[in-house]
């Protein structure tokens, strides 16, 4: 039996265990451990797993993850999302579909302090949905705009997925964050365009709100929104400028958001404790998947499956963009069944060598696959964000939410195509980082 064949068997066992509901991290660790023991030796496998566990958990690099999650949780507990939405509402509410547009804007703002899609969707759902109901918005448009808007959480920095991708492929997290920024803004713009077009065709879906005087708009900036944006600029600026390590950016960000919420008297002891406890839970969830992926990848590397695959693909002599199309297809299908982080961790070691061999830029490749897995969070059957919104809007049927998401999927197709064929959108900003 060739080594690559054992690798394929390993992948099949992995899929079987996953479909039996063994948690993603456990599954990867299990298959990786026993596969490694089979390929090398029992003792070698056991020692490898123990070392991998200590190395991942006690890692300065990975300490960035709990810190950025904490920053997002503090912002959540302090009701920053409410402030962002209020501001966007004042500025954009008078437009056609203005509240849905405000939702997308506020989602982009919240994504700037929060690294997760589901958290962004959950918090904006609670804030924006009641408002859109009050103004008699179409339920499909209302829920669709929150689900889609929330998906920007993993592209606009900080992003847990980009952190993990960066550590796995040894790319600079600062550059990846910079690379996600313009594609994230482009996504927000495309979503806003989508809403305008829908509401132009059928104005009843998103009625206009009252136009507010400029003074009131200006007043809406303070008390949360402007301060949050200043924190974003400080934290990401420090990271881009090379003054902070990513971990320091996370630590400073969390401390600043905590300080801001204390100053605004929006954080009590209970909110503080809840933020900490959700952070440790989320961090444990992420790190167990990371650990599983590390162990699994040690096994997969020994089978040389990724390299065999890379050589085979290069030997096919297909145009690189066609290969990229196939990879994207795998992510689209995979994203329908698996959560984004698990999918990226599982597939990056397999596809990354292919991408490098075909001469693609590693930063660009990371942004593309992150962008594509984002689509998975709003498509059936396992669109995480859709279920999160369903949890907030219990009376709206799932089919209505999926219907509401459909026009945004078209915007997603446009943005993936643009990213694919105009790499400068992604690579211009990171090219300015010189350290």
């Amino acid at each position, binding site marked *: 039996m060739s080594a690559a064949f054992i690798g394929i068997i390993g992948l099949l066992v992995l899929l079987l265990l996953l479909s039996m509901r063994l948690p993603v991290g456990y599954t990867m660790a299990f298959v990786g451990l026993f596969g490694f023991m089979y390929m090398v030796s029992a003792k070698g496998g056991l020692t490898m797993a*123990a070392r991998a566990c*200590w190395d991942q958990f006690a890692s300065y690099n990975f300490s960035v993850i709990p810190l950025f999650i904490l920053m997002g949780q503090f912002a959540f507990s302090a009701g920053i999302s409410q402030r962002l939405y209020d501001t966007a509402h004042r500025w954009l509410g008078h437009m056609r579909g203005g509240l849905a547009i405000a939702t997308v804007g506020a989602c982009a703002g919240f994504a700037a302090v929060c690294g997760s899609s589901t958290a962004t969707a959950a918090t904006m759902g609670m804030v924006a949905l009641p408002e859109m109901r009050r103004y008699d918005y179409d339920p499909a448009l209302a829920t669709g705009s929150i689900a889609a808007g929330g998906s920007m959480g993993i592209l606009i920095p900080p992003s847990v997925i980009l952190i993990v991708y960066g550590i796995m492929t040894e790319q600079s997290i600062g550059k990846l964050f910079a690379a996600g920024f313009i594609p994230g803004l482009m996504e927000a713009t495309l979503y806003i365009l989508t809403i305008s077009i829908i509401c132009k065709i059928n104005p009843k879906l998103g009625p206009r709100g009252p136009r507010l005087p400029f003074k009131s708009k200006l007043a809406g900036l303070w008390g949360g929104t402007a301060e949050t944006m200043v924190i974003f600029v400080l934290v990401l600026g420090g990271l881009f400028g090379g003054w902070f390590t990513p971990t320091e950016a996370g630590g400073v960000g969390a401390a600043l958001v905590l300080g801001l919420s204390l100053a605004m008297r929006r954080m009590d002891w209970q909110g503080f404790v809840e933020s900490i406890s959700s952070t440790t839970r989320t961090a444990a969830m992420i790190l167990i998947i990371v650990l599983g992926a590390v162990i699994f990848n040690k096994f997969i590397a020994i089978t040389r499956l990724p390299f065999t695959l890379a050589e085979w693909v290069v030997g096919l002599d297909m145009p690189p963009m066609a290969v990229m199309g196939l990879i994207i297809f795998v992510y689209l299908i995979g994203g329908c069944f698996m959560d984004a982080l698990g999918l990226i961790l599982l597939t990056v070691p397999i596809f990354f060598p292919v991408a490098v061999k075909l001469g693609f830029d590693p930063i660009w490749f990371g942004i593309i696959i992150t962008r594509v897995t984002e689509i998975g969070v709003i498509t059936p059957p396992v669109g995480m964000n859709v279920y999160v919104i369903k949890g907030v809007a219990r009376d709206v049927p799932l089919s209505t939410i999926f219907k509401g998401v459909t026009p945004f999927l078209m915007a997603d197709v446009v943005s993936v195509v643009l990213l694919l064929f105009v790499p400068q959108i992604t690579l211009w900003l990171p090219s300015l980082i010189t350290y």
Partner: protein
Amino acid sequence: MTVIERVEKAVAWASQKLDVIAGVALVAMMVLVSGNVVVRAVWEPIMGTYEVTAFLAAMTISFALAHCAMNKGHIALTLFVDRLPRRLRAFLDVIVSVLGALLFMIMAWQVTKYAVHMKGTGEVSLTMEIPFYPFIFGVAFGLLMLALVSLVDLLKSLSRLFQK
């Protein structure tokens, strides 16, 4: 209260207490990391920030694992299994919890061995010369608790399997 409920309650209590330690480590990490940025700007870096952060991260993660599992926080694919009949689902749950318990007992045992090894070699961190092994024991303990949570799941799914 049945025996299973009692065991579950005890494990839930212990993992919740561990999670509190994880939270303290997390806050300490935030204070240390951001404090270091400030102190460095006006004076000089706090000694050993790098390695202490890594130790605190290890405690944050390992001590939160069991509590996360207790709350079903670890991501799994529920899509296929949800449609199966109840009995079959309970049967699959038995297998899954056996695999989980087995995996993390092995991991806890191996990490303990690693800690004993590191104690023997007396390895310490670079600048502060803090020994590694107590923290490695901590990680092993967190993994053991995670295995216990899987064992509780095993008991629960077994009772469901044999329920009429």
